Each structure stands twice: as C-alpha cells, then as structure tokens.
C-alpha cells in the first residue's frame, strides 16, 4: 500500500511541478514575430557525409551579413532578423526525423531550410507537408522535389535536378562517344537511382543498351572495391559515379589500386568539385582523376577567372568577417551562401506579413537573376507546381591540371513535361 501511496505522491508532485509550465499558443505561424524569423535545418556535421558540414556555416554567415544590414535593404529582412538553427543528423534519416520534429515542435521554427540528403528529406517530407511547414530549398538535387510539387506543395528543391544532370551526360555520350560501354556506380537510394534514370533518357531509346552494368553501395559502406571489379569485368569503358564525396574519393583511389582507368568518367556535381577532387588526386594520382566530366552551376572559388568577380569578392569578404579561420576555397561555403541568398530573396518577396503560406508562394513564384554566387546568366525561376525547379541551368566542365575548365555553353535543363 505504501508503495502505491508513494507512486501516487510522485504523480501528484510531478503534476504540481508541471502545471505552471502551461503554454499559451497564439494564432500567428510559429517562429515569426515582427523582429525575428526563426528557421532551422539538419545537416551531416558528422558521419559519412560530414564533408558537407561547411554548407550550413556558409548559410549562417550570409544570414549574419544580411542581419547586419548587408545587401543594402536595412538590417535583416523586412525588419526581421534571421535566426538559423542547424543540427547534426549524421546523415542518418532516423536522426533527421527526430531532429526535425525537435526543430518544429520544440524550437518552433518557422520553416525547415536547406536540410541535406535525399533519403533524409524523404523521411521528413510527409511529416512537414502534413504539418504545413515549409521544407524549403532542400540540399539535394533529386528530381522528386520539383516533380512531386502537386502532391507535396510544402516542399521545394533548389539546385539542378539529378535526372537532368545525368541526361546531359547521356546526351554527351550519345553524341561524342559512339559505342561506349557505360557502367554506373551509384548510391542505393533515390539520389543514385536518379542518375540511372536520367542517363537512360539522355542516351535515348536507341542507345539505352549501352549501359552494360550498374552497381550500388550503401552510404555507410567503407569500400566499393567489389562493385568496381564487377564493372570492370563487365567491360565498362565509360564510368558514371553517383556517390557522395567520400565514396567518390574512395572509388578513384580503388581504381588506381586495381589498375583500372576507364576511358571516360562522369561524376555527379555533388562530389566532383574543386573541393573534393584534390583529395582524390592526392590518394589516386592525377592520372586517375584527369578527364573527369561534371557540370557546374555556381562560381567555383578555386577558379582564378573569378578572382575579380564582384560576387566572389563579396563571398570572400563575408567569409573573412563571419567565418574567420575557415577556408574560403572550400566551395561548400559558397554553396551555402548561394542558397542563403535565395532564402533571403524568398523571405523578402513573402512580404511584411510573413506566413508559411506567403513564403511558399514566394518560393514557388520566383524569377531572380541577381544571385551573385551562381554563374553569370543563371536564373532562379519557378512557376507554381507547374515548374518547381528553381535552378536548372548548368554547364559542362572537365577536370585537368588540378582544376575544372568549363566547355560548351550554359544551357537550361529544366525538365519538361514532368
């Protein structure tokens, strides 16, 4: 009996402690006041994709710049300071779910912005759309973000979509490499599979049979040796790599080790950047990496041709002021800043009376040519659920002598009829 009384006592005591904490809820959307807008996202600060950790730091640096009056339209956006909270999900979708719920339900953020990873964003998409919380400018180029906007109107992507990028490679192969035997090494999720789908489109019905083998890996795998041996055995001479930076570098190092150099290598633009490929060169030697083809859409901070570019000067100034000690040659900071620029544009366009709905409306009706961190001539453009692909221009680039050189011209790969 006494045990019972004790339990009852504990229960009552906890009630008494708990009740004063009662919260009153207002009517406006959470996370926004006349002085502040609070946004958040999840990023892999640790784990298999931790090389992307600079992205949220770059975003935050740009928000700090805008909060201090940068961009020339007063402090913050429409009088509101931007508060950006980012949490480490270790590239584990289960963590993404837990932390996103924490951001929405405990931190009461106004919108989830820039969360990174395809499976990670898939894991939270239904929840955020059910709760009508914007899932803004996800840091993944999976085609579904733009293609499924009717079903998930609270989600919008940002960068060029993977299927379109891969279709560019497919068309290039069909036009310039007749008889190539194509193999794909891809991450076993929607990110990796987009590249196979796009490649088939680009090659066209008559050339689809040129894909002789595809092999996948899990993000947590530490080796891709068996996959590469399989691809070599299948007679692949044109390899496409659709993997995270870590796996991509491992793939180059493994190819050098097993003495295999495919004639052509196409590598996803999420990994083939001047930030990651030098590591591949260090581990695998320049010969293994040279000739790699990818696409670009943002200004590469390592490219000397932007030395006197106003956008890149601004980038370096913001880096020096808000991220002293960080390495501005790491293009992930630039990616974060370019994205933050679009976020600020959307917040500005959403107006004084900022609601979750007005933000989505602004993000889905955008036509902006001013992003200083993207390549000249780039347009960030959306048109409701008819076209929910904000950035869709890109240019081919080839890795040679320790850097990328673009070739051909900027072209629009906006998916048509999706």
């Amino acid at each position: 009996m006494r045990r019972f009384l004790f339990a009852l006592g504990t229960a009552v005591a906890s009630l008494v402690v708990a009740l004063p904490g009662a919260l009153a809820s207002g009517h406006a959307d959470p996370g926004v006041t006349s002085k502040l807008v609070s946004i958040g996202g999840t990023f892999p600060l640790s784990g298999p994709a931790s090389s992307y950790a600079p992205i949220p730091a770059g975003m935050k640096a740009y928000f700090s710049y805008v909060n201090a009056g940068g961009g020339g339209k007063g402090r913050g956006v429409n009088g509101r300071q931007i508060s950006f909270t980012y949490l480490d999900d270790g590239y584990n979708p289960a963590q993404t779910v837990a932390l996103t719920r924490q951001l929405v339900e405990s931190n009461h953020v106004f919108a989830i912005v820039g969360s990174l990873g395809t499976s990670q964003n898939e894991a939270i998409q239904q929840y955020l759309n059910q709760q009508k919380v914007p899932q803004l400018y996800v840091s993944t180029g999976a085609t579904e973000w733009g293609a499924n906007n009717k079903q998930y109107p609270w989600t919008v992507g940002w960068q060029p979509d993977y299927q379109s990028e891969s279709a560019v490679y497919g068309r290039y192969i069909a036009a310039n490499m007749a008889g190539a035997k194509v193999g794909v090494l891809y991450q076993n999720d929607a990110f990796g599979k987009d590249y196979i789908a796009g490649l088939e489109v680009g090659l066209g019905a008559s050339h689809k049979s040129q894909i002789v083998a595809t092999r996948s890996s899990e993000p947590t795998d530490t080796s891709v040796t068996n996959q590469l041996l399989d691809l070599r055995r299948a007679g692949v001479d044109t390899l496409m790599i659709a993997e995270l930076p870590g796996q991509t570098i491992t793939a180059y190092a493994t190819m050098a080790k097993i003495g295999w150099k495919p004639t052509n290598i196409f590598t996803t633009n999420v990994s083939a950047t001047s930030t990651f490929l030098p590591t591949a060169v260090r581990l695998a030697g320049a010969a293994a990496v040279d000739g790699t083809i990818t696409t670009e859409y943002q200004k590469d901070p390592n490219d000397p041709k932007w030395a006197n570019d106003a956008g890149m000067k601004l980038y370096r100034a913001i880096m020096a002021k808000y991220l002293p000690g960080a390495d501005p040659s790491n293009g992930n900071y630039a990616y974060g800043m370019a994205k933050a620029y679009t976020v600020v544009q959307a917040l500005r366009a959403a107006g004084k009376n900022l609601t979750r709905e007005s933000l989505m409306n602004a993000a889905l009706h955008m036509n902006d040519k001013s992003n200083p961190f993207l390549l000249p001539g780039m347009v960030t453009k959306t048109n409701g659920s008819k076209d929910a692909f904000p950035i869709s221009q890109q240019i081919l680039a080839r890795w040679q002598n320790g850097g990328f050189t673009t070739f051909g011209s900027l072209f629009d790969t906006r998916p048509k009829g999706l």
Partner: protein
Amino acid sequence: VRSRVNSEFVGELLMRCALMLAVGLTVVFLPRAFDDYFNYRLALVGIYFISIVGLNVVTGYNGQLTLGHGAFMAFGAYATTVLTTEYGVSVYWTIPVAGLVTGVFGLLFGFPALRLSGVYLALATFGLAVSVPLVAKRASGWTGGSAGKVLPLPQSPIGSLSTNQWLSYLTWAIGACLYVAAWIVLRGRFGRAFRAVRDAPIAAVAAGLSLARIKTLAFAISAAYAGVAGALLAIAIAFVNPDTFPVSLSILLLTGAVVGGLGSLEGMLFGAVFIQFVPKWSESINNHAPTVMYGLILLGVLLVAPGGAAQVVSRLIVRLKQTFRPLYSRTSRSSPATQRSET
C-alpha cells in the same frame, strides 16, 4: 485460505491498477502542461516502458541475459511498416499483429538459443542485434534499405488533441494494460516457475518443470512486448530505417532495465525515463558523454544499489517506516493505557 488469497489478489490488482491510473493521470495532465514536443518524448518514454517491462520478464524474472531486445523491437517495427505501407492495414491493427508475430519469432529463436545460457545466450542475442539491421538494409524491397520507409503520421481521432498528445495517450494506455498483464502473469504459476528457473534451475527440474519450455515462454513473452513497443515506435516516429535500431539500442534498453531495477516492474517507469532523457541530456554536455555516462551510471548502480531505482525507493520507504514507526506505535500503545488509568 482460498478466499484470503483471492482477496489479497484483488487488493493487490487494484493497487497495481491504481498505480497505473496515477501514471495515467500524470500522462493525461502532463501533455497539456508542456509543449508539443514534450508529448512526443512522453510517448517515447511509454514505448521504452513497454519494451523494458518485457525485457524484465526474461532478464529480471527469468535470469536470462539478452542483448538483442532492440532487434525484437526492429522486428515489430518492420511488421507494422510492411503491413501499413505494403498492405494498407490501419496502423492500430498492426500493433497486436506485430506483438504476436514478434512473439512467435522470439519463440522460434528461443528454441535453439535457449540451449545456451549465461554469457553464451548473451552473445547469441547480441548477434541478433547486430544482424537484424544488416538484414533490413539488404531486404530493401520490404524495408526500404538504409533510406527507410515513411509511415503516415496518425491523426488524433479526438479533435481537441494534437497528434503528439494522442500518441502519448495511446502508448501509455497500451503500456498500462501490458504492465497489469505482466504483473498478473508474474505473480502466478508462471512467475513462480520463471523465478524458480532463475534461482535454482536444478531444484526446478526436480520439481517437474521443463527448463527449455519455461525459458522459451519467458523469451517469447519478452519478444512480444518488444514487438508491441517496436510497432508503437514506428507509428510515433512515422519513419523506420535500420539505423533506428542500432546495437546500442539493445544495450541502452538493458541499461535502463538495470537502472530501473531488474525484478521490479514499477522500476521500469524510472528505467524508461532514463532511456529517453539521459542520452539527450548527456549529449548536451559533450558529444561523447553518453557512452561514458552509461558506464558510470551502470557502475554506480551496481555498486550502490544493484536493485536499481526500485531498490532505492523501497529502501527509502523502509527508512521512513523506521523513522515514523516509534512515534506511531508509542501513541497507539499508550493511549489505551492512559484510558484505562483514567477510568
């Protein structure tokens, strides 16, 4: 004698129900007092409570050390996921099914595994904890691989409740029922058999008990509880992937059960709170703090109070009794005496 036993049973049953009612009341009022995220975490506490009540049946009452409880939760969670996403079954119906299926899985696993004992059984179950997530990664047709599967987040059928409040009520209602059920099983014939097998296996066999049968039964019950907990976890998070059930989950569950008090069902309340809040709290101190923290707490518990929180509480009650009994007994004894002298 018979009626005395019965009235004792009814009395104690009422007490247990009342304990759960008290917990229930707390759960009913707490969600209204805190923000919505707290409700979500409260639901998770309820899920861990169910899970370690089951763990306690096999480890606390039957004396079998298992390190694979998280794997059984995974099994239940995937049962719910597959039934909901592939066959369109309502999430609520999947809860008993997940419990049943996982119980049968536990039974089947128990047959060969329970020929092992002590550290060997621990290793076998540990193997289960390691392999289930790996199998789930490969069987991506059903499980979605590492990318996982998204479930529909249940909407509260009661309009005034938020989803998280509803989840919290749901898990605690099921938790209360399963707690009372566990208590009924453990206080009766089976519970006696479980404890006999734990404390004196040879004597138990001499008394006509089948060790294998009793152990397998305990294992199956425990697995069924984990299955229900796993199903509820899948429903509450609305997402399942192999990394939801890392090996460390099984260890965390065991830690929670030990800290709560092996052999005490009420202690599992404390254990569940421990599992939900201590890792988060210690993570806020340092990224690597949780593992160190479990180690320290576990050591501390084993040294100071091997019976866990339940033991600490009962010790406290004994101490209180000792403090207040002299007072109480003096007045009760002296009053008739004074009365007598007066008259």
